[in-house]
C-alpha cells in the first residue's frame, strides 16, 4: 500500500482529469458509439415522418383533384365529379364513386363482429390463465396461444373464405352470400384473440396479490374475488386491451380482402353483415392490386385518402389506449 501510493499520486498528479478519462482512442470510440445508437433511434422518427408525409400530401392532392377534376377524369366518370363523390351509395373508384361511409361502415361491422368473438374469448382465456391456471397448465397453454398469434393473417383469410363461410356462416344463415362481412369479421376475431388475451392477462397480473389475499381472507370465493375485486381493479388495463384489439381489428387487411368479397374494388353500401362488403383496409389492398387498365388517377389517389383516414382512426385509438395503460402503472 505505502509503496504504491506515491506512484499513483504521481500519475494522477500530472493531470488527474486526463487519467480518469482514459486513452483518446477509448474516448473517440465512446463518442462514435453514442452517435451511432442515437442515429438508430432517430430512424423511427424518420419512418413516422415518412408515413405521415406520404399520407397527407397525396390525400390532400386527391381531395384537390376531386374539386378540380382533369378532363380525363371527367370523361371517365361521364358526369359530375366533386366533393359530393365522397358521399353516395357505393365505393367504386373505377367509376369515380368514393362513398367513404361504405368503407367506414364496413370496417365498423367487421370490427364489431370481430370484437364479439375476440372480446369474451380473449378476456375469458386471460382470466383463466391469470387467476385459475396452475403452472403446469400455463406451460402448455401459453405456447399454444402464442402459436395462434403467429399464424399469418393471409392464412386466416383463406380459412375464413374456405371454411368459416361455407361451414358456419352459410349453414347458419341461408341467405348469406358466399363471401360476407360476417365471415370476414369472424376471421378477424380469431386473429385478434391472442392480442386481446395477452394484453388482458398483463392487466390482471398487474393487480397486487394482496388484494386477492384480503378478499380471500374475508371468506370470498375465488369467483367472487375475481369478479368483484380483481376485475374492477384491472379495469383500466382491460379497457386498454379492448381498444388495442379494436385498433388491430380495424387495421386488419388480408382476412377482409379475401373473405369479404369486395372483388374489383367495388362495394355497395350495406349494414347487413351477411352481404358482401369492403373495409378501408381491403379497399386499399384491392385498389393497389388492380391492373393498369382499371386504375384511374383519381382512383389511385383514393388509396392515400382512405389510408389517411385509417391512420388517424388507429392513431387516435392507440393514444387513448396508451393513456389507460399509463393509468394502471400509476395506480400500482
Amino acid at each position: 500500500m505505502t509503496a504504491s501510493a506515491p506512484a499513483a499520486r504521481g500519475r494522477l498528479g500530472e493531470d488527474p482529469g486526463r487519467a480518469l478519462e482514459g486513452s483518446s482512442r477509448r474516448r473517440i470510440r465512446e463518442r462514435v458509439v453514442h452517435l451511432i445508437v442515437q442515429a438508430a433511434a432517430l430512424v423511427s422518427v424518420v419512418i413516422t415522418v415518412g408515413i405521415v408525409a406520404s399520407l397527407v400530401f397525396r390525400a390532400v392532392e386527391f381531395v384537390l383533384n376531386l374539386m378540380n377534376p382533369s378532363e380525363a377524369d371527367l370523361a371517365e366518370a361521364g358526369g359530375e365529379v366533386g366533393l359530393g363523390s365522397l358521399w353516395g351509395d357505393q365505393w367504386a373508384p373505377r367509376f369515380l364513386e368514393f362513398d367513404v361511409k361504405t368503407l367506414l361502415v364496413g370496417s365498423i361491422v367487421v370490427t364489431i363482429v370481430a370484437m364479439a368473438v375476440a372480446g369474451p374469448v380473449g378476456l375469458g382465456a386471460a382470466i383463466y390463465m391469470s387467476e385459475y391456471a396452475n403452472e403446469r397448465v400455463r406451460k402448455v397453454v401459453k405456447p399454444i396461444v402464442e402459436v395462434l398469434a403467429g399464424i399469418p393473417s393471409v392464412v386466416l383469410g383463406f380459412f375464413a373464405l374456405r371454411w368459416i363461410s361455407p361451414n358456419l356462416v352459410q349453414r347458419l344463415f341461408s341467405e348469406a352470400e358466399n363471401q360476407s362481412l360476417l365471415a370476414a369479421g369472424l376471421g378477424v376475431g380469431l386473429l385478434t384473440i391472442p392480442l386481446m388475451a395477452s394484453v388482458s392477462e398483463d392487466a390482471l397480473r398487474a393487480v397486487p396479490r394482496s388484494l386477492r389475499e384480503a378478499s380471500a381472507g374475508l371468506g370470498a370465493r375465488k369467483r367472487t374475488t375475481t369478479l368483484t375485486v380483481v376485475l374492477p381493479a384491472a379495469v383500466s388495463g382491460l379497457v386498454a386491451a379492448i381498444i388495442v384489439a379494436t385498433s388491430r381489428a380495424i387495421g386488419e387487411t388480408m382476412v377482409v380482402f379475401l373473405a369479404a368479397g369486395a372483388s374489383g374494388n367495388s362495394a355497395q353500401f350495406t349494414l347487413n353483415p351477411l352481404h358482401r362488403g369492403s373495409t378501408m383496409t381491403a379497399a386499399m389492398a384491392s385498389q393497389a392490386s388492380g391492373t393498369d387498365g382499371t386504375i384511374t388517377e383519381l382512383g389511385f389517389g383514393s388509396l392515400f385518402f382512405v389510408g389517411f383516414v385509417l391512420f388517424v382512426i388507429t392513431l387516435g385509438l392507440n393514444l387513448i389506449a396508451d393513456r389507460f395503460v399509463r393509468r394502471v402503472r400509476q395506480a400500482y
Partner: protein
Amino acid sequence: MSVIQPVVRDTDRDRVAEKVRAAVETGGRDRNEGLFKAALLSTLAFALLVLAVLLFDIITDAWPVFAERLGILMANPTRSRADETGIFQGLRGTFWIGIFVILLTFPIGIAAAIYLEEYAPDNRLTRLININIRNLAGVPSVVYGILGLTIFVGLLKGVYGDYAISRGNTTTAGGLTLAALALPVVIITSAEAIRAVPSSLREAAYGVGATKWEVIKSHVLPYAAPGILTGTLLSLARALGEAAPLILVGAVQGRLGPNTGFFGLEQMGEKFTAMPIVITDLASQPGPDWIPVTSAAIVVLLLVVLSFNAAAVFLRNRFEAKREG
C-alpha cells in the same frame, strides 16, 4: 351497513343454518363456482379448437399435393394451372425479405433500444421518440405499404408512370418496407430485455473502470441477449407473414415469368413476389381445384413462420427457467 347489526333475523335462522350446514358438508364447493370456471375454460378450449380445426383442415387439403407433386410445388414458378403452379418464386421473395429484416431491422432496432435505455437523457425528445415508437407499433400494416409505395418505390423506380404501381416495384422496395414494419417491435422488445438487466451488473463493470460502451458490450448485451433474440425472432416471423404492405408495394400477384436463380443479387432490382402474396393469389382463384395447392403453400409458410415463433418461445422459456432457478 354496520357490523353490529344482526345479519340473520330469527325467522331466517333455520334456513340459514341449513345453508351453512350444506356448505360445510360439501366442503364449501359451489355449483356456480364450477360453472364459472367451466365458462372460462371453454373460452380457452374454443381458441384451441379453432387452431386444431384450422390446422387439420389445411393439412388434410394439402396432403395430396405433398404426396404427389412435392417437386413441382417447390421448384416451379407460378403458373396458371393449379396442378403446375409452384412456390419457388414466393419462397425466394420471402427469403430475401428475411435477409432485409435481419440485416437492417435487427442492428438498427437493437441500437435504438440501447440508445433509449442506456444513453438517452430523460427529456422531451426522448419521451417523444418513445411515444412515437409505441404508436408506430400500432400502425396498421397496410399503412406501411403506403410508406413503401410512396417513398421506397418512388425513390427506386425513378421515372416510371406515376400511378401505374405494377411497374418498377422491386424486391428492394418490398424488403425495405417490411424492415420498417418490423422495426418498432424489435426496439420495444429489445428495450424491455435491456431494462431487465440488473443495475448491479452495470455498477460492477463501471467499478473496475469500464467505459459506458464497454459496460454495454460486455455486460448488458450478453445478459439481455436471450430476450433480444426472442423479440427479434418474433418480429421476423411477423414480417415474413405479412401480405398487405407487399400488395401496396406492388408485389406480383399471379405469374412472374420463368424462374431465375434463388440467391442472385440481381433480383434486388427486379419485380418480386413472396409466400403470403402467392397464397393470396392462389386463394383468390375460383373453384375447388386450387384449394389443395393453396393449402400446401400455406403449410410451407406456416412451417417457416411457426418455426421462428417456436424458437423464440423456446428460447424465452429456457432462459426464464434458468434465471429463476
